[in-house]
Each structure stands twice: as structure tokens, then as C-alpha cells.
């Protein structure tokens, strides 16, 4: 009896081994090469402008490097040119923070609503999809004209804020759907069963469970706003946000200062990613630490 079982296991093991080794046929190597090529094409150009932003004063927009300097970064700050780089930076950051906060709160609420079917939910859902796919500049023009008709001046913290939310909110809600699919409604019922009020259920159970997902939504909100162009173009009013500043530079600046701006902007992006990922890891490590105490 045991002999028979062993025999079956060993032939099965052999077959498994053969199948596994046959996985690594030419398809694996072709796809691995394809993947590597994709990653190089993804990062290569970006790396090249980060390097070129340290171009020497004598250097131009292309390789070779004529020496390393911080000249073009300095020029950004010195504002020797027309334009307001540091002002647009500050505005973009403030705007992105406002968009992030509103996106997280509103899409959390909407996400909670969409967990259950309710009368009219389909209308709201497709309204949201419509807002997501509508051409950004069309909405921008409409908002700009609308403010104009109503006699309200457009401004980056009013009309542009709303214009950006019409894009970040649907996006945030779609991400929130994915986040909330991991929220088991039994947890909320258990909390209610144990005497928690609605607020306690959200504060003590729902939010802590969803925390990593909410950080992800925040990251989306921040990035989408920080990078938003089409909807902001006609709604930002007199003062530029960073992408608008970059846009005007691409049209009339032909020096590596443009690359320097790209480098600075990317550094900010990476700082934000770092902080977000860091806080997610911190949350998880706190849980892991508990395990260590108990062992």
C-alpha cells in the first residue's frame, strides 16, 4: 500500500519537474527580454534628463555633458527669466494637498455608498465615469466660461480646484472600489453587535482596516492633481500651477533649465511616494511588532 503511494508520488513529482523545466523554454527568455526592454524604455529617457539637468553652462539640450554644475537649478530659483517657478511650485503643492484631502474624504463616503445597491446608484456611477472620460480641456473651457458668465473670477484655489476634483474624484472612487472589496461587511456587523455606534464602527474598525488603501487613494489624489494640465489650463486664472509653468517653458525655453525643473518636480514626486509607502510600511510593521512581542 505505502509502496504504491510512494510510486505515485514520485512519478507525479517527475512529471511536475518536467513541466516546470519546460516552463523555461524560449517563451520565458523572449518575454524576459521584452520586459527588460520595456523597463529600460520606461526609465531611460527620464534618467537622461535628470543627468542633463546637471549640464554645464556651456552645454546644450542634448548629450554630451560638458561638465557638471548646478547652474540651471540656480537659474530656476533666481528667476532671471519671466515666470514664477517657485510660486507655481507652492501653489501646486497647496492645491494638491487640498485635492488630496477632499478626494480621500469624498471618495471614502462614495465608496461606502456604492457597497450597497441603492435606488439611482447606476446614474451616479455613470455620471462619475462620464466625468472621468470627458475631454479635460472641454470641461476646463466650460468651467472657465461658466465662472465668467456668473461674474466670478477664475482662480487656482476655486475653479481649478473644482476642475481637478472632477477628474481625481472618479479616479479615487475607482481605486476605493478595489480597496473596499477587501472590507468584509461582517466586521461592521460584528462591531454593531458588540455595541459600537455608527461612528465608533467607522473610527475603530473601518478606517483602521482600510488605512493602507486610503493612503493609496491619497497618493493618487496628490499625483493626479500635482500633474494635472488639461483641466487646469483654462481655470487657473492669473497665476500658474507647476504643470502650466512647465508647459509655457516647453514652448519658449530652450535651455537645460527645463530639465532642471523636471528633476526638481520628480524629486518632489518621489518624496511623496516615499512618505506614502513609508507610512504604509510603518502601519504594517507596527502589526508585525506585535507578533514579536508575543513570541
Amino acid at each position, binding site marked *: 500500500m505505502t509502496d504504491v503511494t510512494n510510486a505515485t508520488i514520485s512519478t507525479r513529482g517527475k512529471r511536475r519537474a518536467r513541466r516546470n523545466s519546460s516552463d523555461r523554454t524560449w517563451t520565458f527568455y523572449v518575454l524576459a527580454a521584452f520586459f527588460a526592454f520595456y523597463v529600460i524604455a520606461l526609465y531611460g529617457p527620464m534618467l537622461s534628463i535628470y543627468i542633463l539637468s546637471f549640464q554645464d553652462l556651456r552645454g546644450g539640450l542634448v548629450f554630451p555633458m560638458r561638465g557638471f554644475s548646478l547652474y540651471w537649478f540656480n537659474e530656476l530659483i533666481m528667476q532671471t527669466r519671466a515666470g514664477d517657478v517657485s510660486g507655481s511650485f507652492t501653489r501646486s503643492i497647496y492645491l494638491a494637498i487640498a485635492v488630496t484631502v477632499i478626494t480621500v474624504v469624498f471618495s471614502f463616503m462614495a465608496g461606502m455608498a456604492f457597497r450597497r445597491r441603492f435606488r439611482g446608484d447606476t446614474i451616479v456611477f455613470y455620471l462619475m465615469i462620464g466625468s472621468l472620460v*470627458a*475631454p479635460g480641456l472641454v470641461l476646463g473651457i466650460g468651467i472657465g466660461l461658466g465662472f465668467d458668465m456668473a461674474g466670478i473670477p477664475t482662480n487656482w484655489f476655486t475653479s481649478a480646484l473644482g476642475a481637478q476634483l472632477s477628474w481625481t474624484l472618479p479616479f479615487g472612487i475607482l481605486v476605493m472600489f478595489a480597496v473596499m472589496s477587501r472590507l468584509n461587511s461582517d466586521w461592521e456587523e460584528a462591531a454593531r453587535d458588540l455595541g459600537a455606534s455608527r461612528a465608533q464602527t467607522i473610527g475603530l474598525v473601518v478606517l483602521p482596516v482600510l488605512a493602507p488603501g486610503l493612503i493609496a487613494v491619497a497618493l493618487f489624489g496628490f499625483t493626479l492633481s500635482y500633474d494635472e494640465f488639461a483641466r487646469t489650463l483654462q481655470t487657473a486664472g492669473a497665476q500658474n500651477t507647476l504643470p502650466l509653468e512647465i508647459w509655457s517653458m516647453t514652448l519658449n525655453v530652450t535651455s537645460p533649465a527645463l530639465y532642471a525643473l*523636471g528633476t526638481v518636480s520628480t524629486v518632489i514626486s518621489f518624496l511623496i511616494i516615499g512618505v506614502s509607502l513609508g507610512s504604509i510600511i510603518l502601519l504594517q510593521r507596527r502589526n508585525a511588532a506585535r507578533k514579536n512581542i508575543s513570541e
Partner: protein
Amino acid sequence: MKLNKTAVGWLNVTPLLAIMVPFFIMPIIVVAIASIMQTDGFGGMFMDPTLENYTYVFQSALTYRLYFETIKFAALTLIFSAFIGFWVAYFLVFHVRSKLLAMGLFLICTVPFWTSNIIRMISWIPLLGKEGLINQALMAMGFIDAPLEFLLYSDFAVVVAYVHQLTIFMIVPIFNSMARIDKRVVEAALDAGASKFDIMRYIILPMSKSGIALGAIFVVSIVMGDFFVVKVMSGGGTASVVGAFYEDIGVLQYPSAAASAIVLTILVMLMVALILRVVDIRKEITQ
């Protein structure tokens, strides 16, 4: 004390609607109204309902050329990004054995998404330009004598920039739908004697369809609504639908720009609706 489900639902989406109504519905209505108004030629508009702006849009040969160009870019971008996205996701899900490694490689693909699109587009300039890295390299290796002109400020450059920006929108949903495929289904098919091609055709492709559709919604709506990439990367040689009415606005031709905007919006919505027939997006995302 207990509210009914519908009331709670609407209460929770109220903040969302408070944004959607003034910043999505109203602007569309405003543009629609503007599209039937007339211009006094000095940037002012007056109300005297007319469909002239639409007849102008539809009678202009330029319109058809613009739509042809824009749809061409959307289609090319869709094809390339779906192709790359599909094989990248397939590699990560089915060929990388360690889950941790697959997740790590997946993150590597997503990081650039968090950086500025505009910067990523500009970053192709020092590579593709006449004196760019690619031309320098090809000449140094003796493949060509004169720099290739078509690399930058061309349709080629536009498609490269779009694909570079948007492939991520394909990878993420396709990766998600492939990750949901039970590996045992593939093994069962192998046991039943299916070839690699059969497995691709009958299992993986049908089961990744929804991911591809979801990605296509993003790619199509973004390319159709864009004018920035075309303007910069084509070097001004090619126009786009949005680019054209942005220029109309520059010269204060609001009504004709508005008519063109409405036509484009309807077209994009129709395209998305067509894709939505393939995939129940709501079911897809909440899974």
C-alpha cells in the same frame, strides 16, 4: 433613527454630486449653450440660437482631417499599449515564479506613473532629437550616415510619447484580471492536452478581456482629449481636435470651439459606451 438604504446611499454620494454638478454637468451645459450662440467677432457672444457653428464644423474638411489624425493616434496608442501591457502582465503573472519578485517588478512598472507626464514626455527630446542619443549612437556604430529626421517632431515621436505615458493604464488592469485566473485551470488544460497557443486563445485571452477593456477606456479617453503631446512632440506639424479648438479660443472664437468640443465629447462618450458593452466595469472593479 434608522434611515433607509436609498437615503443613506444618496447622503454618502452628496459630496461627490456637489463636485460633479458644478464641475462636470454645468460646464458641459455651458459649452452646449455656447455652441449655439453667435460671436460678435471681438470675443463677445450673444444669444441668437443657431446651428451655424455645427454646420461649420461638419462642412470643414479640416474637421475630418483632425478627427482622422486624432483617431489614428488613439488607435495606434491603443494597439501598442495593449500589446506591451498584455505581454508585460503575462510575463509577471505566469512566468515570474516568486510572488514577491512579481510584485516588485510590477511596482517598478508603476513608479513612473507617479511622476509628471509632461516631464516624461519632454524626456524623449534629448534621446530622439537630431543630435539626440539614438542618432549619435547609430551614427557612431556606422548604421547611418545622416541623422534620422523622423525620430523627433513626427507622428512617430507622438506615438512613442503616448505609449510611454499610457501603457501603465493597460498593465494594471490586465495584471489584475490575469492574477485572478486560477493557475489550476491552466494545469487542467495542459493535462487535457492543450497547446500553449490553445491556452492563450481559450483561457488567458478571454479572461483578460475585461482588463484590456478597462485599460482601453483610459487610453482612448486620454488620447482623444489630449493636445499637449501632439503639439510638442509633432513639433507643430500635426494638429489635433482639442488643439484646434484650443487655438479657436486663443482667438476668442468661443462658439465654434464650443461646437467642436461638444462633437468631440459625444464621440468620446460613444467610444467609451462601446467599450463598456464588452465589460461590466462596475462588477469588474468591485470584485
